[in-house]
């Protein structure tokens, strides 16, 4: 016989969050869906156009290029930041004052706001007054991020690596600190090499934090706006124009609310799909353990 009384009153505690999410996310999203099927001239003059904007957006070559650039950018920074973050975490001291100092130094880039990071690198990378620009030109390269697309890409990627590798490093550092000493003792008894310790002890134990780190970095880089906008303004040409910049240009620059809403929904669906893939991966990894 069931004696425990089921009490669902705890759900009321979730109500404030639900209301906040409704006002900040669900209602705006519903409005975007409404905009995406209409041609809106002003708040009182609008015409139903069905799926026309979706067709236009899906066949727009500029958006295809922006999407390609976005994926290329996200995978490039992941391919650099994840191994680099692991290396930094492995090299950080684990005890004493050095550990605290290293943590503070590594965390500094994370404390700087996005637009300030863009401004720092805009000045830092200039060939005439910037240290990095002067250094690159001193090496004999004709470096100019405002006129050369390759240099612009290099600078945008480098800026992101500088800004966000510390996040991966700190996550990995916390993951490494959580490994019990007995694993290392067993490895020493077996006379395991440094590589074997990393491959069979440290890397498997870092798997969870790495998946979370990759998820965070992928999402963040996929939605990146401020830093490249401040640094290059999307140029030269449109070589560093990513999805969010294209969206802002369309929605605010051209005031094409209908196509911009359709574009937002496609963008949202891609992010939702990637989030689900990462979430499922994390959950399945935890189940396997």
């Amino acid at each position, binding site marked *: 016989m069931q004696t425990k009384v089921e009490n669902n009153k705890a759900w009321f505690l979730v109500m404030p969050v639900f209301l906040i999410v409704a006002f900040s996310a669900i209602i705006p999203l519903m*409005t975007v869906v*409404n905009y995406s099927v*209409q041609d809106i001239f002003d708040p009182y003059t609008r015409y139903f156009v069905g799926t026309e904007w*979706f*067709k236009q957006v*899906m066949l727009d070559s500029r958006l295809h290029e922006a999407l390609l650039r976005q994926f290329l950018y996200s995978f490039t920074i992941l391919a650099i930041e994840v191994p680099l973050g692991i290396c930094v975490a492995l090299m950080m001291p684990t005890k004493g004052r050095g550990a605290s100092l290293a943590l503070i130094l590594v965390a500094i880039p994370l404390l700087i706001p996005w637009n300030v990071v863009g401004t720092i690198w805009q000045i830092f990378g200039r060939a005439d007054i910037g240290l990095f620009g002067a250094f690159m030109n001193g090496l004999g390269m004709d470096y100019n991020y405002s006129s050369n697309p390759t240099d612009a890409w290099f600078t945008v990627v480098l800026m992101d690596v500088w800004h966000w590798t510390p996040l991966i490093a700190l996550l990995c550092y916390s993951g490494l600190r959580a490994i019990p000493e007995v694993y290392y003792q067993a490895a020493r008894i077996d006379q395991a090499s440094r590589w074997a310790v990393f491959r069979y002890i440290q890397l498997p134990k870092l798997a969870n934090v790495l998946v979370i780190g990759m998820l965070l970095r992928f999402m963040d880089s996929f939605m990146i706006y401020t830093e490249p906008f401040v640094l290059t303004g999307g140029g030269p040409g449109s070589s560093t124009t990513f999805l969010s910049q294209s969206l802002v240009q369309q929605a605010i620059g051209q005031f094409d609310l209908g196509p911009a809403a359709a574009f937002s929904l496609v963008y949202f669906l891609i992010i939702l799909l990637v989030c689900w893939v990462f979430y499922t991966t994390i959950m399945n990894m935890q189940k396997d353990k």
Partner: protein
Amino acid sequence: MAWMSWTLPTALFFIGIGVILVGMTTWQIVSPCVERRGFLPLATTRGDRLFIGLLSSAFIHLAFVALTDVNIAVATALCAFWMIILMRWG
């Protein structure tokens, strides 16, 4: 509500989503589901299959709109069929 620029099709769409969510919640209370493995390569609950079905339906609609000139109702019918298969055997 006028500022949200409602149209009949979008209102019906959201009512449909709302009805599905309420229905699934009621179904879960009346008959709690257990995770199982169907033709999908992962163990799923009823809610997981609904989410996968809705997300894949959105992409099927986008593909229809982008690649064909067929009426969108055909994509909706195809997605309804896909949802039934996924919920039952997924």
